[in-house]
Protein backbone atom coordinates (compact mmCIF):
# COMPACT_ATOMS: atom_id res chain seq x y z
CA UNK A 1 0.00 0.00 0.00
CA UNK A 2 1.30 3.44 -0.87
CA UNK A 3 1.91 5.79 1.99
CA UNK A 4 -1.03 8.01 1.16
CA UNK A 5 -3.09 9.86 3.72
CA UNK A 6 -5.95 9.98 1.24
CA UNK A 7 -7.87 6.71 1.15
CA UNK A 8 -10.21 7.57 -1.71
CA UNK A 9 -9.75 10.38 -4.18
CA UNK A 10 -12.38 11.04 -6.85
CA UNK A 11 -11.84 13.78 -9.42
CA UNK A 12 -14.24 15.00 -12.10
CA UNK A 13 -16.14 11.73 -12.27
CA UNK A 14 -18.72 11.53 -15.05
CA UNK A 15 -20.89 8.47 -15.58
CA UNK A 16 -23.67 7.87 -18.08
CA UNK A 17 -26.14 5.00 -18.29
CA UNK A 18 -26.95 5.36 -22.00
CA UNK A 19 -28.42 8.91 -22.18
CA UNK A 20 -28.91 9.30 -18.45
CA UNK A 21 -26.13 11.13 -16.64
CA UNK A 22 -25.79 9.42 -13.26
CA UNK A 23 -22.68 11.29 -12.04
CA UNK A 24 -21.86 14.90 -12.92
CA UNK A 25 -18.29 15.92 -12.32
CA UNK A 26 -18.16 14.33 -8.87
CA UNK A 27 -15.08 15.35 -6.92
CA UNK A 28 -14.27 14.56 -3.29
CA UNK A 29 -11.83 12.69 -1.13
CA UNK A 30 -11.93 10.52 1.96
CA UNK A 31 -8.99 10.61 4.34
CA UNK A 32 -7.32 7.55 5.79
CA UNK A 33 -9.05 6.49 9.01
CA UNK A 34 -12.14 8.59 8.30
CA UNK A 35 -15.68 7.41 8.90
CA UNK A 36 -17.39 8.95 5.90
CA UNK A 37 -21.16 9.08 5.42
CA UNK A 38 -22.32 9.41 1.84
CA UNK A 39 -25.91 10.58 1.89
CA UNK A 40 -28.47 11.28 -0.79
CA UNK A 41 -32.03 10.50 -1.86
CA UNK A 42 -32.82 7.33 -3.82
CA UNK A 43 -31.29 7.45 -7.29
CA UNK A 44 -28.93 10.28 -6.37
CA UNK A 45 -25.81 8.34 -7.42
CA UNK A 46 -24.57 6.81 -4.16
CA UNK A 47 -24.39 3.19 -5.35
CA UNK A 48 -23.04 4.27 -8.74
CA UNK A 49 -20.22 6.12 -6.97
CA UNK A 50 -19.48 3.04 -4.87
CA UNK A 51 -19.46 0.87 -7.99
CA UNK A 52 -16.95 3.13 -9.70
CA UNK A 53 -14.68 2.92 -6.65
CA UNK A 54 -14.87 -0.88 -6.52
CA UNK A 55 -14.60 -1.30 -10.30
CA UNK A 56 -18.08 -2.74 -10.78
CA UNK A 57 -19.02 0.25 -12.94
CA UNK A 58 -17.14 1.86 -15.76
CA UNK A 59 -17.12 5.63 -16.13
CA UNK A 60 -16.70 7.99 -19.05
CA UNK A 61 -14.28 10.53 -17.58
CA UNK A 62 -12.54 11.53 -14.39
CA UNK A 63 -10.36 9.49 -12.09
CA UNK A 64 -10.73 7.34 -9.00
CA UNK A 65 -7.77 6.56 -6.78
CA UNK A 66 -7.53 4.32 -3.75
CA UNK A 67 -4.51 5.03 -1.56
CA UNK A 68 -2.87 6.61 -4.60
CA UNK A 69 -3.58 3.68 -6.95
CA UNK A 70 -5.72 4.32 -9.99
CA UNK A 71 -8.72 1.96 -10.02
CA UNK A 72 -8.44 1.42 -13.79
CA UNK A 73 -4.69 1.04 -14.25
CA UNK A 74 -3.91 -0.60 -10.89
CA UNK A 75 -7.19 -2.42 -10.31
CA UNK A 76 -5.56 -5.45 -8.71
CA UNK A 77 -3.97 -3.31 -5.98
CA UNK A 78 -7.11 -1.24 -5.35
CA UNK A 79 -9.38 -4.29 -5.09
CA UNK A 80 -7.11 -5.81 -2.50
CA UNK A 81 -7.60 -2.72 -0.32
CA UNK A 82 -11.41 -2.62 -0.46
CA UNK A 83 -14.11 -4.71 1.20
CA UNK A 84 -17.65 -4.13 -0.09
CA UNK A 85 -20.86 -4.89 1.73
CA UNK A 86 -23.45 -4.43 -1.00
CA UNK A 87 -27.13 -3.61 -0.55
CA UNK A 88 -28.38 -6.84 -2.08
CA UNK A 89 -27.78 -10.40 -0.88
CA UNK A 90 -25.74 -11.87 -3.72
CA UNK A 91 -24.24 -15.02 -2.25
CA UNK A 92 -23.02 -18.10 -4.07
CA UNK A 93 -25.96 -20.55 -3.78
CA UNK A 94 -23.82 -23.70 -4.02
CA UNK A 95 -21.73 -23.08 -0.91
CA UNK A 96 -22.29 -23.22 2.82
CA UNK A 97 -21.61 -19.92 4.53
CA UNK A 98 -18.27 -21.13 5.88
CA UNK A 99 -17.19 -22.33 2.42
CA UNK A 100 -18.42 -19.06 0.94
CA UNK A 101 -16.16 -17.03 3.24
CA UNK A 102 -13.27 -19.42 2.74
CA UNK A 103 -13.43 -19.23 -1.04
CA UNK A 104 -13.86 -15.46 -0.92
CA UNK A 105 -10.71 -15.16 1.20
CA UNK A 106 -8.98 -17.46 -1.29
CA UNK A 107 -9.83 -15.13 -4.17
CA UNK A 108 -8.01 -12.42 -2.22
CA UNK A 109 -4.91 -14.58 -1.93
CA UNK A 110 -5.42 -15.78 1.66
CA UNK A 111 -4.14 -19.33 2.20
CA UNK A 112 -6.74 -22.06 2.87
CA UNK A 113 -5.67 -22.50 6.51
CA UNK A 114 -5.74 -18.77 7.27
CA UNK A 115 -9.00 -18.37 5.37
CA UNK A 116 -10.72 -21.08 7.38
CA UNK A 117 -9.51 -19.56 10.65
CA UNK A 118 -10.56 -16.05 9.64
CA UNK A 119 -13.97 -17.32 8.51
CA UNK A 120 -14.51 -19.00 11.89
CA UNK A 121 -13.44 -15.84 13.74
CA UNK A 122 -15.87 -13.66 11.80
CA UNK A 123 -18.73 -16.13 12.08
CA UNK A 124 -18.11 -16.22 15.82
CA UNK A 125 -17.99 -12.45 16.04
CA UNK A 126 -21.26 -12.05 14.14
CA UNK A 127 -22.91 -14.94 15.98
CA UNK A 128 -23.22 -17.17 12.94
CA UNK A 129 -20.83 -19.93 14.03
CA UNK A 130 -23.63 -22.46 14.59
CA UNK A 131 -24.88 -21.81 11.04
CA UNK A 132 -21.49 -22.41 9.38
CA UNK A 133 -22.64 -25.47 7.42
CA UNK A 134 -25.90 -23.96 6.18
CA UNK A 135 -26.41 -22.29 2.85
CA UNK A 136 -27.36 -18.62 2.83
CA UNK A 137 -30.95 -19.41 1.83
CA UNK A 138 -31.50 -20.91 5.28
CA UNK A 139 -30.58 -17.64 7.02
CA UNK A 140 -32.91 -14.85 8.11
CA UNK A 141 -32.57 -11.34 6.65
CA UNK A 142 -30.56 -10.12 9.65
CA UNK A 143 -28.23 -13.11 9.45
CA UNK A 144 -27.67 -12.50 5.73
CA UNK A 145 -26.78 -8.91 6.55
CA UNK A 146 -24.19 -10.13 9.04
CA UNK A 147 -22.89 -12.64 6.51
CA UNK A 148 -22.47 -9.82 3.98
CA UNK A 149 -20.39 -7.95 6.56
CA UNK A 150 -18.30 -11.06 7.22
CA UNK A 151 -17.66 -11.40 3.50
CA UNK A 152 -16.61 -7.75 3.19
CA UNK A 153 -14.17 -8.19 6.09
CA UNK A 154 -12.78 -11.62 5.25
CA UNK A 155 -9.56 -10.32 3.68
CA UNK A 156 -9.05 -7.64 6.35
CA UNK A 157 -9.38 -4.68 3.95
CA UNK A 158 -8.08 -1.17 4.64
CA UNK A 159 -11.29 0.42 3.37
CA UNK A 160 -14.73 -0.89 4.18
CA UNK A 161 -17.50 0.27 1.89
CA UNK A 162 -20.97 -0.29 3.27
CA UNK A 163 -24.04 0.31 1.15
CA UNK A 164 -26.91 0.68 3.64
CA UNK A 165 -25.55 -1.94 6.03
CA UNK A 166 -28.35 -1.71 8.58
CA UNK A 167 -31.35 -1.43 6.26
CA UNK A 168 -33.98 -3.88 7.45
CA UNK A 169 -32.14 -4.75 10.69
CA UNK A 170 -33.84 -4.78 14.07
CA UNK A 171 -32.63 -2.37 16.75
CA UNK A 172 -30.48 -4.85 18.62
CA UNK A 173 -28.63 -5.91 15.48
CA UNK A 174 -28.30 -2.31 14.34
CA UNK A 175 -26.65 -1.32 17.63
CA UNK A 176 -24.35 -4.34 17.48
CA UNK A 177 -23.26 -3.47 13.95
CA UNK A 178 -22.71 0.17 14.95
CA UNK A 179 -20.49 -0.88 17.86
CA UNK A 180 -18.47 -3.13 15.62
CA UNK A 181 -18.05 -0.46 12.95
CA UNK A 182 -16.91 2.07 15.54
CA UNK A 183 -14.40 -0.46 16.82
CA UNK A 184 -13.09 -1.10 13.31
CA UNK A 185 -12.76 2.62 12.70
CA UNK A 186 -10.91 3.05 16.00
CA UNK A 187 -8.52 0.32 14.85
CA UNK A 188 -7.70 2.49 11.82
CA UNK A 189 -9.99 1.21 9.09
CA UNK A 190 -11.41 3.77 6.72
CA UNK A 191 -15.18 3.38 6.48
CA UNK A 192 -17.34 4.68 3.66
CA UNK A 193 -21.00 4.33 4.46
CA UNK A 194 -24.23 5.11 2.66
CA UNK A 195 -27.41 5.23 4.64
CA UNK A 196 -30.88 6.71 4.70
CA UNK A 197 -30.81 6.81 8.50
CA UNK A 198 -29.64 10.27 9.57
CA UNK A 199 -29.23 9.03 13.12
CA UNK A 200 -26.76 6.41 11.89
CA UNK A 201 -24.64 8.98 10.07
CA UNK A 202 -24.83 11.38 13.01
CA UNK A 203 -23.78 8.78 15.56
CA UNK A 204 -21.01 7.09 13.60
CA UNK A 205 -19.44 9.39 11.07
CA UNK A 206 -16.80 12.09 11.17
CA UNK A 207 -17.27 13.47 7.67
CA UNK A 208 -20.43 13.76 5.60
CA UNK A 209 -20.95 14.16 1.87
CA UNK A 210 -24.33 14.71 0.24
CA UNK A 211 -25.04 13.84 -3.36
CA UNK A 212 -28.16 14.80 -5.30
CA UNK A 213 -28.96 14.23 -8.99
CA UNK A 214 -25.40 12.99 -9.52
CA UNK A 215 -23.68 16.09 -8.07
CA UNK A 216 -22.03 16.63 -4.72
CA UNK A 217 -24.10 19.36 -3.08
CA UNK A 218 -22.36 19.58 0.26
CA UNK A 219 -19.40 17.99 1.97
CA UNK A 220 -17.68 18.65 5.26
CA UNK A 221 -17.09 17.84 8.87
CA UNK A 222 -20.06 16.47 10.77
CA UNK A 223 -19.71 19.18 13.41
CA UNK A 224 -20.18 21.85 10.75
CA UNK A 225 -23.32 20.12 9.54
CA UNK A 226 -24.96 19.99 12.92
CA UNK A 227 -23.67 23.30 14.30
CA UNK A 228 -26.83 25.20 13.44
CA UNK A 229 -29.41 22.50 12.95
CA UNK A 230 -29.70 18.74 13.07
CA UNK A 231 -28.39 16.56 10.26
CA UNK A 232 -31.84 15.83 8.87
CA UNK A 233 -32.58 19.52 8.43
CA UNK A 234 -29.15 20.07 6.85
CA UNK A 235 -29.78 17.14 4.51
CA UNK A 236 -33.21 18.44 3.48
CA UNK A 237 -31.78 21.89 2.86
CA UNK A 238 -28.87 20.57 0.79
CA UNK A 239 -31.03 18.32 -1.36
CA UNK A 240 -33.93 20.75 -1.71
CA UNK A 241 -36.33 18.13 -0.40
CA UNK A 242 -39.28 19.12 1.71
CA UNK A 243 -40.27 17.57 4.99
Amino acid at each position, binding site marked *: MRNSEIAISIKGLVKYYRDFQALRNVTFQVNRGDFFAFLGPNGAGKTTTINTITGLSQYQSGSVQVFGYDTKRNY*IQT*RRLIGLCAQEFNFDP*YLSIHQLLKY*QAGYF*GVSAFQASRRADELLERFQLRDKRNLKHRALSGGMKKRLALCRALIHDPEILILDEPTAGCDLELKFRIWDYLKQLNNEGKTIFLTTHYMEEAERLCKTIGIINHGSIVRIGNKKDFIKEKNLEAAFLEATGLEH
Partner: protein
Amino acid sequence: MITNPIGVAALMRREIYRFMSVAGQTILPPVVNSLLFMFIFGVAVGQRITFHGTGLTYLEFIVPGLMVMHLISGSYENTSSSLFIARWHNHIQEVLLAPLSYFEMVLGLLAGGVVRGVIVCIEVFIVSVFFLHTEIYHPLLFLYFIVTISVIFACAGMMGALWAEDFSMLSTWNVYIIVPLVLLGGVFHPVSGLPVIAQKISHFNPLFYLVSGVRYSVTGMIDVSLLICITIAFVLSIGFFFLTVLLFKMGYKLRT
Protein backbone atom coordinates in the same frame (compact mmCIF):
# COMPACT_ATOMS: atom_id res chain seq x y z
CA MET B 1 1.25 -13.57 -15.88
CA ILE B 2 -0.28 -15.04 -12.70
CA THR B 3 0.11 -12.67 -9.77
CA ASN B 4 -2.48 -14.25 -7.46
CA PRO B 5 -1.97 -18.05 -7.66
CA ILE B 6 -3.94 -18.69 -4.45
CA GLY B 7 -6.86 -16.73 -5.88
CA VAL B 8 -6.79 -18.64 -9.17
CA ALA B 9 -6.56 -21.97 -7.32
CA ALA B 10 -9.50 -20.99 -5.09
CA LEU B 11 -11.61 -20.08 -8.11
CA MET B 12 -10.65 -23.34 -9.83
CA ARG B 13 -11.58 -25.35 -6.73
CA ARG B 14 -14.89 -23.53 -6.46
CA GLU B 15 -15.76 -24.28 -10.09
CA ILE B 16 -14.87 -27.96 -9.72
CA TYR B 17 -16.75 -28.18 -6.41
CA ARG B 18 -19.84 -26.70 -8.06
CA PHE B 19 -20.25 -29.42 -10.68
CA MET B 20 -19.11 -32.19 -8.33
CA SER B 21 -21.78 -31.15 -5.82
CA VAL B 22 -24.41 -31.85 -8.48
CA ALA B 23 -22.73 -34.95 -9.95
CA GLY B 24 -26.10 -36.57 -10.62
CA GLN B 25 -26.76 -33.86 -13.18
CA THR B 26 -23.25 -33.31 -14.49
CA ILE B 27 -21.09 -36.45 -14.25
CA LEU B 28 -23.44 -39.43 -14.35
CA PRO B 29 -25.77 -38.66 -17.30
CA PRO B 30 -23.01 -39.11 -19.95
CA VAL B 31 -22.42 -42.66 -18.62
CA VAL B 32 -26.09 -43.62 -19.09
CA ASN B 33 -26.30 -41.76 -22.37
CA SER B 34 -23.19 -43.34 -23.90
CA LEU B 35 -24.19 -46.81 -22.67
CA LEU B 36 -27.47 -46.47 -24.57
CA PHE B 37 -25.78 -45.04 -27.66
CA MET B 38 -23.23 -47.83 -27.80
CA PHE B 39 -25.83 -50.50 -27.24
CA ILE B 40 -28.34 -49.21 -29.79
CA PHE B 41 -26.09 -47.76 -32.50
CA GLY B 42 -23.07 -49.94 -31.90
CA VAL B 43 -24.52 -53.34 -31.07
CA ALA B 44 -28.14 -53.40 -32.28
CA VAL B 45 -27.92 -51.25 -35.42
CA GLY B 46 -24.16 -51.07 -36.00
CA GLN B 47 -23.74 -54.74 -36.83
CA ARG B 48 -25.85 -54.22 -39.95
CA ILE B 49 -23.74 -51.28 -41.12
CA THR B 50 -20.80 -52.17 -43.32
CA PHE B 51 -17.91 -49.76 -43.48
CA HIS B 52 -15.62 -49.62 -46.44
CA GLY B 53 -12.20 -48.01 -46.27
CA THR B 54 -12.08 -47.08 -42.58
CA GLY B 55 -10.83 -50.41 -41.28
CA LEU B 56 -13.09 -50.01 -38.25
CA THR B 57 -16.38 -51.50 -37.11
CA TYR B 58 -19.20 -48.99 -36.69
CA LEU B 59 -18.90 -49.16 -32.90
CA GLU B 60 -15.15 -48.55 -33.05
CA PHE B 61 -15.87 -45.60 -35.31
CA ILE B 62 -18.49 -43.90 -33.14
CA VAL B 63 -16.74 -44.29 -29.75
CA PRO B 64 -14.27 -41.40 -30.36
CA GLY B 65 -17.17 -39.35 -31.76
CA LEU B 66 -19.22 -39.97 -28.64
CA MET B 67 -16.21 -39.03 -26.51
CA VAL B 68 -15.89 -35.71 -28.34
CA MET B 69 -19.65 -35.08 -28.17
CA HIS B 70 -19.73 -35.47 -24.38
CA LEU B 71 -16.44 -33.63 -23.97
CA ILE B 72 -17.90 -30.65 -25.81
CA SER B 73 -21.27 -30.65 -24.06
CA GLY B 74 -19.67 -31.13 -20.62
CA SER B 75 -17.22 -28.25 -21.11
CA TYR B 76 -19.75 -25.92 -22.69
CA GLU B 77 -22.59 -26.57 -20.26
CA ASN B 78 -20.37 -26.27 -17.22
CA THR B 79 -19.01 -22.80 -17.84
CA SER B 80 -22.19 -21.48 -19.46
CA SER B 81 -24.42 -22.50 -16.57
CA SER B 82 -21.91 -21.56 -13.86
CA LEU B 83 -21.23 -18.08 -15.23
CA PHE B 84 -24.81 -17.40 -16.24
CA ILE B 85 -26.15 -18.36 -12.79
CA ALA B 86 -23.42 -16.22 -11.23
CA ARG B 87 -24.62 -13.28 -13.36
CA TRP B 88 -28.26 -14.09 -12.65
CA HIS B 89 -27.77 -14.16 -8.85
CA ASN B 90 -25.12 -11.47 -9.13
CA HIS B 91 -22.63 -13.44 -7.04
CA ILE B 92 -20.22 -12.94 -9.95
CA GLN B 93 -19.39 -9.81 -7.93
CA GLU B 94 -17.46 -12.06 -5.54
CA VAL B 95 -15.01 -12.68 -8.38
CA LEU B 96 -15.16 -9.22 -9.94
CA LEU B 97 -14.26 -7.55 -6.65
CA ALA B 98 -11.27 -9.81 -6.07
CA PRO B 99 -7.67 -8.86 -6.92
CA LEU B 100 -7.56 -11.19 -9.91
CA SER B 101 -6.51 -10.08 -13.37
CA TYR B 102 -8.98 -10.79 -16.18
CA PHE B 103 -6.63 -13.49 -17.43
CA GLU B 104 -6.72 -15.11 -14.00
CA MET B 105 -10.51 -14.86 -13.76
CA VAL B 106 -10.98 -16.65 -17.08
CA LEU B 107 -8.36 -19.25 -16.15
CA GLY B 108 -10.13 -19.99 -12.86
CA LEU B 109 -13.61 -20.17 -14.38
CA LEU B 110 -12.30 -22.30 -17.22
CA ALA B 111 -11.06 -25.03 -14.89
CA GLY B 112 -14.51 -26.42 -14.09
CA GLY B 113 -15.36 -26.78 -17.78
CA VAL B 114 -12.06 -28.44 -18.66
CA VAL B 115 -12.10 -30.87 -15.74
CA ARG B 116 -15.75 -31.81 -16.27
CA GLY B 117 -15.20 -32.26 -20.01
CA VAL B 118 -12.17 -34.46 -19.48
CA ILE B 119 -13.95 -36.55 -16.81
CA VAL B 120 -17.00 -37.27 -19.00
CA CYS B 121 -14.79 -38.00 -22.01
CA ILE B 122 -12.84 -40.59 -20.02
CA GLU B 123 -16.12 -42.00 -18.67
CA VAL B 124 -17.30 -42.64 -22.23
CA PHE B 125 -14.03 -44.40 -23.01
CA ILE B 126 -14.41 -46.60 -19.91
CA VAL B 127 -17.99 -47.47 -20.94
CA SER B 128 -16.71 -48.48 -24.39
CA VAL B 129 -14.43 -51.07 -22.78
CA PHE B 130 -17.57 -53.10 -21.96
CA PHE B 131 -18.40 -53.33 -25.68
CA LEU B 132 -15.02 -53.36 -27.39
CA HIS B 133 -11.46 -54.41 -26.89
CA THR B 134 -10.17 -50.86 -27.18
CA GLU B 135 -7.13 -48.86 -26.19
CA ILE B 136 -5.82 -45.36 -26.80
CA TYR B 137 -3.60 -45.48 -29.89
CA HIS B 138 -1.70 -42.26 -29.10
CA PRO B 139 -2.18 -41.15 -25.44
CA LEU B 140 -0.24 -37.87 -25.70
CA LEU B 141 -2.15 -36.72 -28.76
CA PHE B 142 -5.37 -37.81 -27.07
CA LEU B 143 -4.52 -35.65 -24.05
CA TYR B 144 -3.64 -32.75 -26.34
CA PHE B 145 -6.94 -32.92 -28.20
CA ILE B 146 -9.21 -33.37 -25.19
CA VAL B 147 -7.57 -30.46 -23.35
CA THR B 148 -7.64 -28.08 -26.34
CA ILE B 149 -11.23 -29.04 -27.26
CA SER B 150 -12.42 -28.57 -23.68
CA VAL B 151 -10.69 -25.16 -23.53
CA ILE B 152 -12.41 -24.10 -26.78
CA PHE B 153 -15.88 -25.07 -25.58
CA ALA B 154 -15.44 -23.96 -21.97
CA CYS B 155 -14.57 -20.52 -23.40
CA ALA B 156 -17.51 -20.71 -25.81
CA GLY B 157 -19.69 -21.49 -22.78
CA MET B 158 -18.45 -18.37 -21.01
CA MET B 159 -19.11 -16.25 -24.09
CA GLY B 160 -22.61 -17.71 -24.35
CA ALA B 161 -23.21 -17.00 -20.66
CA LEU B 162 -22.13 -13.39 -21.08
CA TRP B 163 -24.27 -12.90 -24.16
CA ALA B 164 -27.44 -14.56 -22.79
CA GLU B 165 -30.06 -12.44 -21.06
CA ASP B 166 -32.24 -15.36 -19.98
CA PHE B 167 -32.22 -19.16 -19.81
CA SER B 168 -33.69 -19.64 -23.29
CA MET B 169 -30.90 -17.54 -24.83
CA LEU B 170 -28.38 -19.63 -22.90
CA SER B 171 -29.27 -22.78 -24.87
CA THR B 172 -29.42 -20.98 -28.25
CA TRP B 173 -25.74 -21.42 -29.16
CA ASN B 174 -25.77 -25.03 -28.11
CA VAL B 175 -28.94 -25.98 -30.00
CA TYR B 176 -28.44 -23.97 -33.19
CA ILE B 177 -24.66 -23.88 -33.62
CA ILE B 178 -22.68 -26.36 -31.55
CA VAL B 179 -24.87 -29.49 -31.83
CA PRO B 180 -25.30 -29.20 -35.65
CA LEU B 181 -21.56 -28.60 -36.11
CA VAL B 182 -20.73 -31.58 -33.90
CA LEU B 183 -23.17 -33.94 -35.63
CA LEU B 184 -22.05 -32.80 -39.09
CA GLY B 185 -18.40 -33.05 -38.03
CA GLY B 186 -18.31 -36.82 -38.43
CA VAL B 187 -19.34 -38.10 -35.01
CA PHE B 188 -21.59 -40.85 -36.43
CA HIS B 189 -20.50 -41.05 -40.06
CA PRO B 190 -17.30 -40.90 -42.09
CA VAL B 191 -17.31 -37.66 -44.04
CA SER B 192 -15.68 -39.49 -46.97
CA GLY B 193 -18.96 -41.36 -47.40
CA LEU B 194 -20.90 -38.18 -48.11
CA PRO B 195 -21.63 -36.74 -51.58
CA VAL B 196 -18.70 -34.67 -52.90
CA ILE B 197 -20.39 -31.32 -52.28
CA ALA B 198 -21.24 -32.26 -48.68
CA GLN B 199 -17.65 -33.45 -48.17
CA LYS B 200 -16.36 -30.04 -49.32
CA ILE B 201 -18.74 -28.22 -46.97
CA SER B 202 -17.67 -30.48 -44.09
CA HIS B 203 -14.09 -29.35 -44.58
CA PHE B 204 -15.14 -25.84 -43.53
CA ASN B 205 -16.50 -27.23 -40.27
CA PRO B 206 -13.78 -26.94 -37.59
CA LEU B 207 -15.48 -29.70 -35.61
CA PHE B 208 -14.61 -32.13 -38.39
CA TYR B 209 -10.90 -31.61 -37.66
CA LEU B 210 -11.35 -31.85 -33.89
CA VAL B 211 -13.36 -35.09 -34.17
CA SER B 212 -10.82 -36.45 -36.67
CA GLY B 213 -7.95 -35.59 -34.31
CA VAL B 214 -9.52 -37.45 -31.40
CA ARG B 215 -10.47 -40.39 -33.65
CA TYR B 216 -6.87 -40.66 -34.82
CA SER B 217 -5.49 -40.51 -31.27
CA VAL B 218 -7.90 -43.28 -30.19
CA THR B 219 -7.98 -45.57 -33.26
CA GLY B 220 -5.03 -44.57 -35.45
CA MET B 221 -7.42 -43.96 -38.35
CA ILE B 222 -7.60 -40.56 -40.08
CA ASP B 223 -8.79 -39.27 -43.47
CA VAL B 224 -7.40 -35.72 -43.20
CA SER B 225 -4.01 -34.20 -42.40
CA LEU B 226 -3.17 -34.67 -38.70
CA LEU B 227 -1.08 -31.50 -38.75
CA ILE B 228 -4.14 -29.50 -39.79
CA CYS B 229 -6.15 -31.05 -36.93
CA ILE B 230 -3.43 -30.20 -34.39
CA THR B 231 -3.08 -26.64 -35.72
CA ILE B 232 -6.83 -25.94 -35.73
CA ALA B 233 -7.20 -27.24 -32.16
CA PHE B 234 -4.29 -25.04 -31.03
CA VAL B 235 -5.38 -21.87 -32.84
CA LEU B 236 -9.01 -22.16 -31.75
CA SER B 237 -8.19 -22.83 -28.10
CA ILE B 238 -5.78 -19.88 -27.87
CA GLY B 239 -8.15 -17.65 -29.87
CA PHE B 240 -11.23 -18.49 -27.79
CA PHE B 241 -9.30 -18.09 -24.56
CA PHE B 242 -8.00 -14.62 -25.33
CA LEU B 243 -11.33 -13.53 -26.80
CA THR B 244 -12.96 -14.46 -23.48
CA VAL B 245 -10.27 -12.57 -21.56
CA LEU B 246 -10.96 -9.56 -23.78
CA LEU B 247 -14.70 -9.72 -23.01
CA PHE B 248 -13.92 -9.79 -19.28
CA LYS B 249 -11.54 -6.88 -19.69
CA MET B 250 -14.20 -4.90 -21.56
CA GLY B 251 -16.63 -5.79 -18.77
CA TYR B 252 -19.11 -7.03 -21.39
CA LYS B 253 -22.39 -7.50 -19.46
CA LEU B 254 -20.35 -7.81 -16.27
CA ARG B 255 -19.84 -4.20 -15.35
CA THR B 256 -22.37 -1.42 -15.86
